[in-house]
């Protein structure tokens, strides 16, 4: 209700959502630093949604930093580049954040090497065609750096019959603790501006909006300072609210357009790209380089030397945490932000292109969450007021405990839940709502797959 009033007064925001403590003060002032090389870098073939890349170098091969070592396997796939000059020790299985074992390169960086980066033929925004740009982005191995890991060229490819009028550059960074996009906007505003012409050329969009939350006024200022006069770009400052960085919320907040259930921003003529991704495009394409490192916030209460680091892809969590130093009672390491990030099951997992942060907690914080008493639902409606998709998490939670998954999907729109975690965050009864919904979604998908298989027989 108040959100509607705010909109009347021109405040751009979306309805519902939550205000978790942003916890960004510890790292937002710290400039991006280059992180050292680990003794062994582990680079999985699959760091994106879609088909894993196909390795083009074998065990024992010497590779140069930035050299392509795996090529895309079809359209829904991107290339992989060597994060360091060194030796491919082996190609074998490595643990991934989703708990599975996945094949990857084990690369031993040469300690004596200057680690110069290999450049290739440049692709320029003003001369290249739309197809050339998309294929350059694919071969540069660029995926959504905001955490999704969706191949960027696939996202920018406007299908037949659709048009895009607006491009949103997502610098909301609404997840607590994370300050990577913040630092990139501050320190590499020029790269963001260099990246935008590629996106405009590839999509045919008419206008560009860069969205920044109001807790990063310096970033908005830095971007405005370098706005090119000849491009239709505006910088919008949005009030701080989680999950503003979600595409649906961002499109609603900025343009007042509602993306249809099950649809994409494309359905309302919009494409959203993370600001870090845009900056990488602006940095890599003119140099003909591939993505071999990324900016990551290493923080959280358990981390001693918090900061924003440019870390080689494939650096294991153990090396990162040992380098920055941690408290003794470290209990949980989250890859990404604390609202939607995944807890690592092993410190042998390495960071990938989609890693936005490495946030470590001690027992003081996680103990409170893990050992807290659960009460019955008191129908307070806090989750209903929080859900940005306007679901009824209370009702869904009750149905989930009765395992009525079909009703959840058919009558209560479970599929529209994008697992932002607002409901679990606010629930005073400490019911793990979004966690129950994940279980329910998996079970309903399984049941549906089984039904389809039966029907096919």
């Amino acid at each position, binding site marked *: 209700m108040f959100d509607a009033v705010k909109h009347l007064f021109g405040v751009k925001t979306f309805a519902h959502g939550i205000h*978790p403590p942003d916890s960004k003060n510890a790292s937002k002032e710290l400039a991006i630093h280059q992180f050292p090389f680990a003794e062994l870098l582990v680079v999985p073939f699959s760091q994106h949604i879609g088909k894993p890349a196909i390795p083009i170098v074998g065990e024992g091969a010497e590779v140069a930093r930035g050299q392509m070592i795996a090529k895309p396997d079809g359209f829904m796939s991107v290339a992989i580049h060597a994060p360091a000059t060194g030796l491919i020790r082996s190609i074998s299985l490595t643990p991934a954040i989703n708990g599975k074992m996945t094949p990857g390169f084990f690369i031993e960086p040469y300690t004596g090497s200057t680690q110069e980066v290999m450049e290739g033929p440049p692709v320029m925004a003003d001369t290249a065609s739309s197809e050339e740009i998309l294929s350059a982005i694919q071969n540069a191995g660029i995926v959504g750096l905001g955490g999704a890991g969706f191949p960027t060229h696939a996202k920018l490819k406007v299908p037949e019959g659709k048009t895009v009028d607006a491009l949103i550059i997502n610098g909301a960074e609404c997840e607590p603790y994370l300050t990577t996009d913040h630092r990139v906007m501050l320190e590499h505003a020029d790269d963001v501006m260099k990246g935008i012409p590629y996106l405009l050329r590839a999509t045919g969009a008419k206008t560009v909006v860069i969205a920044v939350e109001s807790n990063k006024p310096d970033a908005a200022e830095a971007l405005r300072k370098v706005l090119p006069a000849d491009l239709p770009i505006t910088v919008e400052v949005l009030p701080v609210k989680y999950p503003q960085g979600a595409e649906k919320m961002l499109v609603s907040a900025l343009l007042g357009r509602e993306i249809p259930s099950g649809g994409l921003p494309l359905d309302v003529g919009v494409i959203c790209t993370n600001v870090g991704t845009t900056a990488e495009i602006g940095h890599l394409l003119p140099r003909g380089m591939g993505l071999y490192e990324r900016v990551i916030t290493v923080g959280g209460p358990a981390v001693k030397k918090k900061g924003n680091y440019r870390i080689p892809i494939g650096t294991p969590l153990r090396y990162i945490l*040992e380098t920055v130093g941690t408290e003794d009672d470290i209990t949980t390491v989250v890859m990404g932000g604390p609202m939607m990030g995944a807890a690592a099951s092993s410190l042998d997992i390495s960071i990938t292109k989609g890693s936005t942060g490495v946030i470590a907690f001690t027992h003081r914080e996680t103990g409170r969450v*893990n050992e807290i008493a659960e009460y019955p639902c008191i*129908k307070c*409606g806090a989750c209903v007021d929080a859900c940005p998709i*306007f679901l009824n998490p209370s009702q869904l939670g009750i149905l989930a405990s009765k395992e009525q998954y079909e009703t959840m999907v058919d009558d209560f729109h479970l599929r529209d839940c994008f697992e932002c975690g607002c409901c679990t*965050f606010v629930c005073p009864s*400490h019911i793990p709502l979004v966690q129950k919904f994940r279980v329910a979604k998996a079970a309903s998908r399984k049941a549906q797959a089984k039904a389809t298989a039966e029907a096919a027989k």
Partner: protein
Amino acid sequence: MTRLAKTLTIRSSPHIRATSGVDSIMFNVVLAMLPVCFYAVYIFGMAAALVLVTSVVTCVLTEHFLCRLNGKATTIGDWSVVITGVLYGLTLPPTLPLWMVVAGGVIAVGVGKYLFGGLGYNTFNVALVGRAILQAAFPAAMTTWPDAPVNRFGSLPSSTLALPLTKPVYDGVSSATPLADWKFNQVATETGDLFMGTITGSTGETCALLILIGGIYLVARRMMNWRIPVVILATVAVFTGILHLVDPERYASPTFMLFSGGLMLGAVFMASDMVGSPITHTGTVIYAILIGLLVVLIRVWGGMPEGVMYAILIGNAATPQIDSWIQPKVYGTSMRRAAS
């Protein structure tokens, strides 16, 4: 460089939580009601204090022993049963024999809450279930109100310690509540007296001012849905205002209606109970309008002078139906419907 060899706790996100829990919400509701309790004791003396203490102790012990009897961990730590005890005590006449307080309290928590499945599952407001049972079982005792007692802190009304199952004996003449005075004698009480609570009535339904302060405290701490009390009071004000304009002789003024009887206590502390009210904002507004209309209907055309209790219980009964009608409109669904 430290060597890390640790076991990691893995858990599905989110990894952070808001700080307030059910227990802290419930505890704050109890806090918000304390001024009302103290004022009731100031007005009615020792008898009111005994009613309140007895009702709280009875409700808490009933829940504790029912949990133990069923081999479950006790749930009194969530403070919800303390709210029930306080509210239940506040709805009773201060001269009510204590054994009736105990009987009603056991039934309220045992039947009204525990049989339904405990916190979160009770359809009806637990305190009002206790009061409704007493009203049906002991109509005379439940509608006998004390005249201003002479020595309210030094002595007890003879009815308070009446033996179980005996007919209580009352000292002196009982007086009528403002609502009964209006209904049966057409005598209106000064609004100022109503607001400050220098009147007779149930233990906690006297001082509107303190009830409002408690409510504002809870709303400010985001522990109460302000729409419920506001809409109930507004509905009553508008409905009785229209009636009063039509015939001021026959129908009491809206201010009198707002500040008399149990309306303030009911609207602020009982109707707003999260468990018994709808979950959506639209739903709570419908629920609150329903309660407001019923209060006026019962007060003006019903056989009883007061109708807040039944209005809220009927509102509670309507809640599941309201919730099944009113669901939030899911983001992105209207366009798909338009397209298909």
